[in-house]
């Protein structure tokens, strides 16, 4: 789509130092069509990700290999517009979901929660691949794992309600992060020791940007596993639990 009215930019060679949209040229004073469409497409991907839907059947099917019970839960945010306007509702389970938890009271070490967050696409694509590495590591370390919970219209803090209801010592919550223009499928993992309702973000450790073009599954799983071990050892999570994994090597 480059044409003779587009004034190209001599800075093109600097693009290797930054992903910023530098050196995009101009037509008159405006952004050339090619770059304008690239931007629009990236925004379209991000918008679609926000409204993408959790593939509960697909996840259910794949998660069977772990031989763990799978619970399907829903927050109090009935739909996406409500979810976007009322973050408080996305942090609480609806009544039907709470009832489901009461059937699983046996204490466990770890509970794994998968929530759509701001990009269901992110967990649809990345959650199982990460768990395939992480769950065997946890089992090998003799940690007991409770039911895997799939939550629709969930925010991070909903994990506290769930883990507390299931009597778990630690929660690992996988959630779709706010889509950026360059990453509509970025998954975050939040780890909380002694989860209970009312905790805030400083009580958690977050591993961000998990996706094939970001932090890949193996290093992400290793990082989570390291933090799980440290959390059980120090009986804490959050700002006081530093990720010193790199220093040990």
């Amino acid at each position, binding site marked *: 789509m480059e044409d003779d009215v587009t*004034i190209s*930019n*001599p*800075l093109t*060679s*600097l*693009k290797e*130092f*930054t*992903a*910023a*949209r*530098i*050196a*995009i040229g*101009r037509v008159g*004073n*405006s*952004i050339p069509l090619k*770059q304008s469409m690239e*931007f*629009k497409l*990236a*925004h379209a991907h*991000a*918008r679609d*990700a*926000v409204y993408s839907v959790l593939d509960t059947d697909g996840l259910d099917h794949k998660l069977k290999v772990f031989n763990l019970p799978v619970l399907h839960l829903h927050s109090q945010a009935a739909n996406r517009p409500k979810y*976007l*306007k*009322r*973050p*408080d509702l996305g942090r609480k389970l609806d009544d039907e979901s709470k009832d489901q938890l009461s059937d699983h009271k046996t204490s466990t070490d770890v509970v794994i929660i998968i929530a759509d967050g*701001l990009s269901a696409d992110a967990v649809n694509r990345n959650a199982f691949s990460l768990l395939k590495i992480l769950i065997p590591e946890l089992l090998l370390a003799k940690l007991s794992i409770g039911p895997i919970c799939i939550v629709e219209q969930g925010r991070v803090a909903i994990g506290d309600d769930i883990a507390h209801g299931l009597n778990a010592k630690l929660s690992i919550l996988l959630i779709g992060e*706010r*889509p*950026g*223009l*360059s990453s509509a499928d970025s998954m975050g993992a939040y780890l909380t020791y002694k989860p209970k309702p009312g905790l805030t973000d400083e009580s958690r450790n977050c591993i961000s940007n998990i996706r094939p073009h970001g932090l890949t599954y193996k290093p992400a799983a290793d990082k989570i596993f390291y933090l799980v071990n440290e959390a059980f050892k120090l009986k804490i999570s959050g700002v006081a639990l530093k990720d010193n994994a790199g220093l040990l090597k």
Partner: protein
Amino acid sequence: MSYQFTIRNKVYRFNDLKTLLAKASPYRTGDVLAGICAESYEERVAAQIALADVPLKAFLNETIIPYEQDEITRLIIDNHDVETFKSISHLTIGEFRDWLLSEEIDNKILSDIEGGITPEMVAAVSKLMRNQDLIAIAKKREIITRFRNTIGLKGHFSTRLQPNHPTDDPKGIAASIIDGLLYGSGDACIGINPATDSPAAVMHLLNLIDRLRQQFEIPTQSCILSHITTTLELINKKAPVDLCFQSIGGTEQTNTSFGINLALLDEAYQATLSLNRGTGGQNVMYFETGQGSSLSANAHHGVDQQTCEARAYAIARKYKPLLVNTVVGFIGPEYLYDGKQIIRAALEDHFCGKLLGLPMGVDVCYTNHAEADQDDMDNLLTLLGVAGCNFIMGIPGSDDIMLNYQSTSFHDALYLRKTLGLKPAPEFEQWLIKQGITDDFGNLLTINPAHKLLSEIL
């Protein structure tokens, strides 16, 4: 004191000024989330009609957050200038709206009453206004500030060049700076949001921009938007700090959540002044604000988000800042849901800030989970240009790869300058001409790859 208005036999009662202000506020998700929004269109208009009859004086007698509990309230009340208030003290909020719109009320008169009006008065009057009123009145005001150049002159329009990078890579940042300068961006400042707040990293970035600025004799100022305590520490280490940055909010508790208070701001302001680096003037502070921050910090005291925002301007004006930037669409849809709400909030903030004497700029922006897109930003950008906004952001291709949101591009500023006949800060304009970046009429020239700005970095 309680307020009321009756519509078709239905009596709407509002228990206090705080409630009246919240119910009179144009609809936005943040006030719904806080549970203080009007419950119907009719209730909102009833509140607005009731608010129109409230005397300006009432805001001096009834504080919306108690004087004893909040140092921002104390700042507002203690600094109120009774003398300058005299000329408008007989007006109600409704009469104040008409007074502001009157033809004879010009920049000089608005400047004269500045010390006599409080943030709450300005927030209240804005709630009775249409977008058009907010633009027409803000347009009257000319707020000029100086450091190495002159910002805010009528007919001029500036940009903060924002060359952020997710890992603060010096080459990546330098590439974005050069790109921006070649599009005529950066006269408000070159300002980086650092990826980390570590003093060593911030020092590195300060030196990077300072070297660049001196090497090419660019008549602008730099700012690394680190926490004020980090900046203070670096000033004590003789770092080249031009502008001292801080995010501020409209309640004491909000500021506590930001890790600041007025005493700390005083200290940082004095320390930055003592460096005496401004060659054209001594406006050394850069503040950022944004509706919703008090609710987000659970520190709003039941006050609507627009009034909280206006209260933050009471802090800003105490320190004669070079730049005040309301980051309007960054906070997300639970506070400002869509383009309509973002546009309204930006015009309110710009109006309130200007009336309180502040050099207002706006980060015309949105996140991907808000119901907004580039068209909404084009609308807002154009409205702000007409309203006489001092500056916007300049970001490569609108895409901030560090903060993950969309703001205005270098091209956006060029569009506005061209369509509205606006120029950069005069000193910067001369520099652009001297560098062969623009011609005498502000048109961009084709850049030769041998241009020294390029050859230095390539």
